């Protein structure tokens, strides 16, 4: 399974993401620069955290127009697996690949510490190795992780089972319905504020994030079994 880790000017979690794939899965992984116009070689696209384009204007607002993003859209439509973490999540919402938006933390503080998350949907491409309702510990590090969407969108997210993670304890940013991560309707595109790539080894304080990477490998294997192109297999 081939992984791409996108790199924008200002990405700073790209190395962690790359190492997580390398260490947890021992699968081929490449850094892909934001100017790339071909992602056809990759089965999963990982959009890492950081401060792409200095967070100018809004987080992710400029990155979403990078040449590589039309390829990400194509990959998502083809049913390939796309994960956006932190700034990657912000980019995916700005690009319209995921609903809602991420706004300033209610506290106005940059919050950087481990949090407990409830796995609300263990059927996505990135969460199939978790148990439904399980609590996992994964760190956050953001100043603008307050997920917002209108009531109509929230009702849709709930109805389609698109809420992937909720904060289990205190809500660190004021997000709607304690949302920490969501997916698209098809379940192949996931965005989340917490950083699973920073929780892949006990030495890092938690290895609960490692199963996100194992999950996508499972999803890829079962997609290969049921025949490529069936796409929606992830759900």
């Amino acid at each position: 399974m081939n992984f791409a880790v996108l790199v924008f000017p200002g990405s700073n979690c790209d190395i962690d993401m790359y190492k997580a794939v390398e260490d947890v899965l021992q699968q081929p992984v490449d850094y892909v620069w934001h100017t790339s116009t071909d992602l056809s070689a990759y089965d999963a696209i990982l959009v890492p955290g950081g401060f792409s384009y200095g967070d100018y204007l809004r987080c992710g607002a400029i990155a979403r127009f990078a040449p590589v993003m039309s390829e990400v859209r194509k990959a998502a439509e083809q049913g390939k697996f796309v994960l956006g973490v932190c700034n990657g999540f912000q980019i995916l919402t700005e690009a319209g690949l995921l609903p809602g938006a991420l706004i300033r933390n209610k506290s106005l503080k940059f919050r950087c510490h481990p949090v407990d998350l409830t796995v609300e949907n263990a059927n996505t491409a990135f969460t199939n190795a978790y148990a439904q309702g399980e609590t996992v510990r994964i760190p956050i590090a953001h100043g603008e992780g307050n997920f917002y969407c209108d009531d109509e969108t929230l009702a849709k997210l709930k109805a389609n089972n698109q809420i992937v993670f909720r904060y289990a304890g205190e809500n660190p940013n004021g997000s709607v319905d304690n949302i920490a991560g969501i997916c698209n309707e098809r379940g192949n595109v996931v965005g989340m504020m917490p950083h699973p790539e920073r929780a892949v080894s006990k030495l890092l304080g938690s290895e609960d994030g490692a199963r996100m990477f194992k999950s996508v490998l499972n999803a890829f294997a079962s997609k290969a079994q049921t025949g490529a192109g069936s796409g929606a297999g992830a759900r």
Partner: protein
Amino acid sequence: MKATVYVTIKENVLDPQGNAVQSSLHTMGFGEVAKVRIGKYMELQLDTNDRAQAEERVKAMCEKLLANTVIEDYRFELEG
């Protein structure tokens, strides 16, 4: 021609910065401040004299990039 663009957080979306500034103003004795909303102000110098076209183009800029209409409202003025 010059375009002045104002981007503000939608009425029904929480503006934590605005709230913090309001409470600071209250602390300073400006108790009459009932609400503060913080937004962005942008000046765009346009290479055109065609007002109708500018109107249409600036609107497209706002919709595509300058504002995120999930959370923000925008308005703009054209001058010159």
